[in-house]
């Protein structure tokens, strides 16, 4: 419902060129829906010049010895909060070239923030708990979102015409874990795409000993 409201708003704001909605369904090789795949769209003419932000909070919480969410999409320059909701302490780090950092041990109900200026993927880990893995995808386009449990994503108000559709997933078997496709959006309406992404299983965590 909220999406629908948002779509109505966008339609009112841009009356000159009727924007289109981009609906993408992502499946894996076996036809199962793929969740947490980040779908981005880059119009050929470039995105809006004014700053934008996404509707979801820029927050990577640690809860039940897991990062939550698994994948977080933020625009470049966003500051992401890392609240610890566990009773144990965590030491969050990333060796990703886009933004290596390390948050020293911090405890329950403590929050650290990190500002991500560069576009890219930041793989997160906890130095204490190997099983904790999460990814922050820093994008520079407002047309970005991750798929839901049904593997679906809907991008609102994309300008019609040619553009590049990209699908990223941390375990996608592709260069840079990303698929790229040139598309042409119609005037208004919903542009639907079904994409197939070959997803490998996540690395095995040996905790047997």
């Amino acid at each position, binding site marked *: 419902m909220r999406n629908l409201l948002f779509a109505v708003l966008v339609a009112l704001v841009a009356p000159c060129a009727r924007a289109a909605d981009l609906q993408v369904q992502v499946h894996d090789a076996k036809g199962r829906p793929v969740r947490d795949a980040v779908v981005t769209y880059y119009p050929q003419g470039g995105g809006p010049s004014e700053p934008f932000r996404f509707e979801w909070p820029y927050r990577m919480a640690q809860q039940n010895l897991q990062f939550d969410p698994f994948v977080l999409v933020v625009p470049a320059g966003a500051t992401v909060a890392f609240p610890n909701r566990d009773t144990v302490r965590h030491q969050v780090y990333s*060796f990703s070239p886009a933004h290596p950092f390390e948050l020293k041990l911090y405890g329950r109900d403590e929050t650290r923030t990190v500002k991500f200026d560069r576009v890219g993927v930041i*793989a997160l*880990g906890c130095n204490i708990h190997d099983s904790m893995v999460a990814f922050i995808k820093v994008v520079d386009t407002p047309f970005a979102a991750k798929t839901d449990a049904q593997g679906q994503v809907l991008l609102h108000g994309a300008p019609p015409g040619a553009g590049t559709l990209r699908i990223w997933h941390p375990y996608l078997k592709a260069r840079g874990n990303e698929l790229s496709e040139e598309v042409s959006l119609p005037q208004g309406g919903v542009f639907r795409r079904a994409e197939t992404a070959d997803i490998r*299983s996540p*690395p095995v965590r040996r905790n047997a000993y």
Partner: protein
Amino acid sequence: MFSRLRTRLTVLYAALFGASLLLLSAALYGVITGHAVREVGDQLTASATVFNRIWAMRSQQMQEGADLLSRDFGFREAVASKDAATIRSALDNLAGRLGADRAFIVGMDGQVASADGKPVSRTAAKVLGQLDQDQDASGVFTLDGAPYQAISAPILSPTLTGWVVFANKLDRSEMGSLERLSSIPLRAQVAYQAAPGSWRVPVGESEGVDAGKLSAFVDTELATGKVRARHLATAAGASIALVTPLKTLSTSAPAVLVLRYPMSLALEPYRVLLEAAAGVGLLGFAFLLAGSWALARSVTRPITALADAVGRLQRGESAEVEVNTRDEIGHLASSFNAMASEIRAREAKITHLAMHDPETDLPNRRSLEERIVPMADAAEGRLAVVALGVDRFAHVRGAIGFALAAALIGEIGDRLRLLHPAYPLARLSTDVVGLAFIAKDAQSAQRMAVRLLAELEAPLSLGDNTIDVSLTVGLALQGEHDDVVASIVERATIALDQARAARLKTTVFDAGLYGDPASNLSLMSEMLAGLDQGQMLLHHQPKLDLRAGKVTGVEVLIRWRHPGRGLIVPDRFIPMAEETGHIGALTEWVLARALEEQALIRHHGHDLTMSVNLSGRLLGDAGFAAVALEMMRGAPGKLVFEITETAVIDNPAIALKTIDRFKAAGIGISIDDYGTGLSSLAYLKQIQADELKIDKAFVLKIDESHRDALLVRSTVDLAHSLGLTVTAEGVETATALSLLAGMGCDVAQGYLIARPMPLKELLMFLGEEGAGRRLSA
């Protein structure tokens, strides 16, 4: 090859037993080998399991270390920041701690970095580069021809940024330590696939296993999909091998664990058993060989003995076989003995029969001929043989019967034996008993003959009869050049015949009287040759017709002038010709010649009747009659056949028919030598003769014997009354001639008138007579 039964039996038994022994051995060996292979196979399988377990433990140990390293924050940071020096030192550190030989870092891009800085071969790099997070990447990994036990651990920071790989070289000492874990001294090797179909063991560890053979073996074993111990031939001998697939770092480079155990060692526990079996087998074989040899011997020895006995029997020796078993061969031996003794008895009987006269059981002629051979040429005198003939034996036999007649001869033999036990005797023929002795000279031999006569001519009592025996003795002595001693016996019998002919009691063999029988046969062939070669000629004895007072005919007599023997008298060859059947040819020749000469005489103006002697034997010969009649056809002169009585006329019916044919042809028939021998009144009754010739025996002494004169006279009267003319033979005196003329005799023949003479002389004689010489009574 095995001509002897004993050898054949032994070989047969040995072969049969040997074959079964071989089969048994093969079966035993097969079972034992199979068992050993299974046993060792179980051991190998167990060892393989242990090896896998050990390897898993080692892998796990290394894995743990690698995992520790890959999670080390500092290490991960170093990897993330590509701090090569730190990475290498960390790897070295852990490799040393884990006891790993090599350590690598493999990047997500497949780039391989070795901890020790040594370059990594491209093949190995490729394998390492294939590491994928999907794999449980640990296992065998081959680097530079040497297998390694390798493990890999992903470097998660926190995403996969690469792998850390630790590898432990599976060298000889490493494998050796694994081998020592097994309860049996097996050989463990890791074989890797260098290329499809080509399996290799680490360099320098081929251990006599041919690479091609190994490859084929491994491929076969893998293809079966079953882990099972099998035979593998190696240069060092057969072995039992087990191939177990090994987990490898990369599926593209498979490797297997090859566990080998030498067959010889596998069979070692069974060696004693096998040796014992072989020993027992060989011992059994030896026993069987000896046993079958002995058995064969026991079977063949009596057979050999029998064969030897048969040989002895063949040579006429004693052929008794010892019978010491009651089996078939024993039966055979006793049967053989019975047969042999029967054969010997029969042989003795045959020999006895060959040498004895069955009627009297006296030795026979052949026996005597053999027994006198050693007596010949004795130093003390000459060998003499007497033939004692029972006179008129045919009559005696007719009187007393055959059995008693034989008994008579036997009795004479017994007497002789009793009187002269030292002298060999024999029954030479039905009525002749022979005795051989050594005489000082011919006189003493003759005295002996006379003495024998005296001894034997005593009356004999046979059963109820008493028989007077009259004997004639022929005596023959060994001559100076007698080649054949046995012929003395023959000569003695001939002497006996001569004695009988001469009506003497004893006679010594006269070679002059009797030709050699062997030369007699040649005489006949010479006679036939003589006929062709003109050795024969005719003599003519004129026959004086007493009424006409002149010679009206001649008796034709044959003479043989032998080129070597001189003149041979007809008495020598005529009887022989009669006996041998040559008389026909001879008579034909005489007849032809007589006809020729008759014509010649006629040419000289004298018409003479030719009288030709015709053997009574020829009267039965239709062939001769035909030939004679053919010759007679057209002959102008008169011909008379004088039928001599030298032989019995066999078939009177045919003879009379022949005579009728002759008569029909105008041939006169004369009965010769009337009054002696067979010429009897029966002749006169049967034969329609024209002439009767009174034998000279009656005529020669007609002038002295009144009795002879009476006989001649009555005969002349008898003949005349039957319508026959009468010719008297043997007229030698004028008195006789005048007496005959007075008796009415028609024709005279004899030396008084003329001796037999050749044709030339006859012609002269006839000429003289014609000129006026006239004989008168």
